[in-house]
């Protein structure tokens, strides 16, 4: 059979591997014998490949337009997966590295965290009682005429402004002293302790290794004064550790370590995303907490006038 005897339909079916087997074999055999047929089939192949390529090009353009329409929520979804703990340790690390490298992204994550945290708290019965407690406290302050402690500082500022040069220098020196010893970053440095990994992690559990790596990463951020990144890293560990398969002993140790260091990272931040005093109190009052004693000291510092002045 020569080129004249094979129809366009058969040639197309041959090229698509859709001819019945005997015909497929026959055409193949003819191709070996007939140069004209080979040229003919090759020409159809170019036409069909061109049509397939054109179809794919159109499909890609269609996908691009769908992607542009659906991508608007990609970042929100990404942050929600992270905050909801849906990512594996590798995913968490990728997010934390991204936050450390991109302050705008970090701020976005923080905003969502506050939003989600706020919504969770709104459902919490304790939150309602806390509101009532704050309300009662504010009413008491208003009644006793001590609405804001900052009022008591005003005469001192006025005095300083009017004081002679020697007093100004003395005040500046005092201010520098306060910054060096009572600013958030200074307190964070004073209370920071390097982790003792052998003590905090069991060696046998395979799951401990990625967690330990993330803990090391978080500590490096804190030591390197990358407080925002350190906060997020310890914060995500606090969500991840309870879901791990570690035994209760190691779980508690790691959680305590992550919680304490998250507090130190937050203390060093310009705008701490958590209530420092409430968190220090939580650690101090947790029975058997490894950092309870240190939390008490930190709490004293955070509540001191020196801290307020330095910050």
């Amino acid at each position, binding site marked *: 059979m020569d080129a004249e005897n094979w129809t366009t339909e058969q040639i197309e079916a041959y090229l*698509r591997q859709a001819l019945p087997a005997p015909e497929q074999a026959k055409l193949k055999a003819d191709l070996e014998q007939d140069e004209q047929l080979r040229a003919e089939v090759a*020409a159809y192949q*170019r036409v069909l490949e*061109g049509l397939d390529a054109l179809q794919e090009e159109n499909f890609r353009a269609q996908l691009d337009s769908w992607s542009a329409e659906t991508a608007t929520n990609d970042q929100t*979804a990404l942050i929600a997966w992270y905050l909801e703990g849906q990512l594996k340790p590798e995913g968490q690390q990728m997010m934390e590295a991204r936050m450390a490298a991109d302050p705008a992204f970090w701020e976005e994550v923080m905003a969502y965290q506050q939003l989600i945290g706020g919504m969770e708290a709104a459902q919490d019965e304790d939150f309602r009682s806390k509101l009532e407690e704050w309300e009662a406290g504010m009413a008491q302050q208003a009644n006793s005429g001590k609405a804001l402690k900052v009022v008591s500082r005003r005469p001192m500022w006025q005095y300083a402004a009017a004081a002679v040069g020697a007093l100004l220098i003395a005040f500046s020196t005092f201010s520098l002293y306060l910054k060096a010893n009572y600013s958030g970053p200074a307190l964070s440095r004073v209370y920071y302790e390097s982790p003792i990994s052998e003590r905090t992690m069991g060696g046998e559990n395979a799951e401990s290794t990625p967690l330990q790596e993330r803990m090391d990463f978080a500590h490096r951020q804190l030591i390197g004064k990358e407080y925002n990144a350190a906060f997020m890293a310890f914060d995500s560990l606090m969500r991840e550790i309870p879901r791990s398969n570690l035994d209760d002993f190691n779980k508690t140790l790691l959680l305590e370590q992550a919680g304490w260091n998250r507090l130190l990272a937050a203390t060093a931040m310009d705008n701490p995303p958590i209530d420092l005093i409430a968190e220090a109190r939580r650690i101090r009052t947790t029975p058997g907490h490894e950092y309870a004693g240190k939390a008490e000291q930190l709490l004293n510092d955070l509540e001191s006038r020196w801290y307020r002045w330095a910050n």
Partner: protein
Amino acid sequence: MSESYSEDNALLEQLRSGDQNAWRNLYEEVRSPFRLYFIRYGTAPEVATEMFQEAMVILNRNIRTGKLQAPLKSALRTYIIGIGRVLLMRKGTDTQQWEGEIPEIPILPEVEDQQERKAKAQLARQLLDRLGSPCRELLELFYLKNYVMEAIARELDLPSPGAARRRKHDCLRKMRELMTA
């Protein structure tokens, strides 16, 4: 066969017939779980999005060429994630320890680059432009929009699917002749 696969088998037929709504719905349904699956294990979000686009192109190609046919051995969503895993493994990422029963999808290595594909598409476009309007329309419906013969007959007011099939091969022959004209 599970109920979900029967649904997916029906969906596969819709996809094969070029139903744009079916493709769009599948795209929207699978995009987020696909991205989450890969981002969860540390794949950068941008890479996951690119991989999803590529996996959809490969799915489209496999359906068009008949490599993927009913009855399906896995849900379409799982199949698409399987394509993504193969793509990622080709980039050197080990995904063996990842959770989930994701099938190994055989994907041919890309034998042509983007330029080559563009050149082929360009040739087809030029040939279609030189064809008369009725033939161009018919070939576009069949090859670019994946219409079945019944739909083409209805669309072009032809007496039967058989007539549409004959017309299609006449047109394809004309297109081939234009190559050497």
